[in-house]
């Protein structure tokens, strides 16, 4: 769908050209991971950033040391509980609607102002993750809107050189969305059984000549030669429940244990993110 109401910027990449001279060649190789395989990146979380919303939160994940790689910046606002529109049918519990939107400048490829299918997909995943944590029947006949803007999309400007697949970036974005939405819901005072947080684990291949693989959490695509498979998990730590699982990639069919280990690492990453979330929520009251 083309957007004919606004004057859009150029559709392609909006970065200056990078010339291929001798001094830059060393920058372009996969740098390798600077963290231990089971450590997520540092993140900053703050609630109550939007005064007009019932609840809001802001999440920032640090950029990697490599130049040209952006971090993740998310802003979430929760509106409601409020009355449902007249046209909607009776609902004995709260109706959740989630909107995830990349800012036009958030990624290397410029995004349109209208939500595209991948953003709708993120919204659906987010809704599934949150629905498991909300006590929906406390709020009959009402709706709540959760709106997330991705301000900076955690992308490497040189991704095309490594791998053109955006899905791995979407997984990182989704795990951030889950964490930030959970903080905003707690800020809005909507009943939840637990604080849900997101985490990503991936099976990566570090060097092109070597076929050995390893499992890392919170992967940055540019740090690895190839990402074979990844899963994004939304996890409730005190309940010990997984509310959403998004898996993508190819695993050797013979090795079922690999799949379990990947999910375990995803849960681990989510538990780590949850510690930040708990720390942030504890800091807001008191």
């Amino acid at each position: 769908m083309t957007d004919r109401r606004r004057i859009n910027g150029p559709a392609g990449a909006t970065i200056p050209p990078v010339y291929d001279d001798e001094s830059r060649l060393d920058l372009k190789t996969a740098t390798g991971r600077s963290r231990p395989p089971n450590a997520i990146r540092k993140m900053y979380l703050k609630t109550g950033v939007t005064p007009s919303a019932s609840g809001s939160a802001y999440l920032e994940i640090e950029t990697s040391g490599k130049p040209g790689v952006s971090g993740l910046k998310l802003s979430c606002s929760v509106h409601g509980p409020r009355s449902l529109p007249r046209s909607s049918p009776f609902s004995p519990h709260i109706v959740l609607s989630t909107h995830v939107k990349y800012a036009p400048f958030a990624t290397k490829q410029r995004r349109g102002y209208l939500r595209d299918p991948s953003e709708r997909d993120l919204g659906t995943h987010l809704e599934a993750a949150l629905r498991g944590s909300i006590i929906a029947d406390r709020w009959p006949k009402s709706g709540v809107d959760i709106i997330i803007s991705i301000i900076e999309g955690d992308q490497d400007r040189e991704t095309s050189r490594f791998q053109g697949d955006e899905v791995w970036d979407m997984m990182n974005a989704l795990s951030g969305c889950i964490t930030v939405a959970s903080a905003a819901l707690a800020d809005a005072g909507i009943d939840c059984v637990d604080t849900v947080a997101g985490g990503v684990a991936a099976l990566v291949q570090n060097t092109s000549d070597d076929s050995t693989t390893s499992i890392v959490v919170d992967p940055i695509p540019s740090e690895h030669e190839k990402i074979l498979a990844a899963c994004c998990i939304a996890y409730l730590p005190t309940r010990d429940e997984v509310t959403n699982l998004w898996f993508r990639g190819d695993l050797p069919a013979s090795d079922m244990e690999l799949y379990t280990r990947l999910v375990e690492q995803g849960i681990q990453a989510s538990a780590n993110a949850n510690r930040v979330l708990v720390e942030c929520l504890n800091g807001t009251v008191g």
Partner: protein
Amino acid sequence: MSTATAPSLAIPGQLLGPASKFRPGPGTHIHDANLYSSLLGLVHVTQPAKAPGPAKRLTKITPAPAPAELPTVSVSASDQKLKREVLPEVGNTVLCRVMRIMPRQAVVAILVCGDTVLDAEWQGLIRVQDVRATEKDRVKIYESFRPGDIVRAEVISLGDQANYYLSTARNELGVILATSEAGNTMYPVTWKEYRDPATGLTEMRKVAKPY
């Protein structure tokens, strides 16, 4: 088993105590016989009201502590946010403004629920059979309410998708503030009449009994 056992600050999913020692209040839920917080806020433990007068000597065997004697634990948002959003519930007394009247019903906007002023606007409906308790077949909506009146009513049902169903079928429920056709605020004279102090004319309303 006092305030010391419950932490002062709770986040969603935090363990507050066993369900055998506390009663769940607002902002909490029970899972696996334990009480957990479901909101971010401060924990309040309310001791049950003691029976007045000296304790009587036991003359019969009673079952061990009844649930009503347990302290209630609740979680509510701190003072920085004035009040949490509330929803009208069945049995609540609400204040509402009449938006429009129809022969069979009056459409109202619920403004206040209990003691809380609502942020969101909820729509309510007073059907002709819920206006008063007696002579229901003689009720005329236009002789009971006019647009702009402030009405005290009780929620009787969550209703359909759009409306809460309200009732004024009690003496202390009905119109509490009415303006005449001339635009003056009127005072109640009988259970079904308001009088305009300026013109002296009376208008028909379902009048709420003053406290």
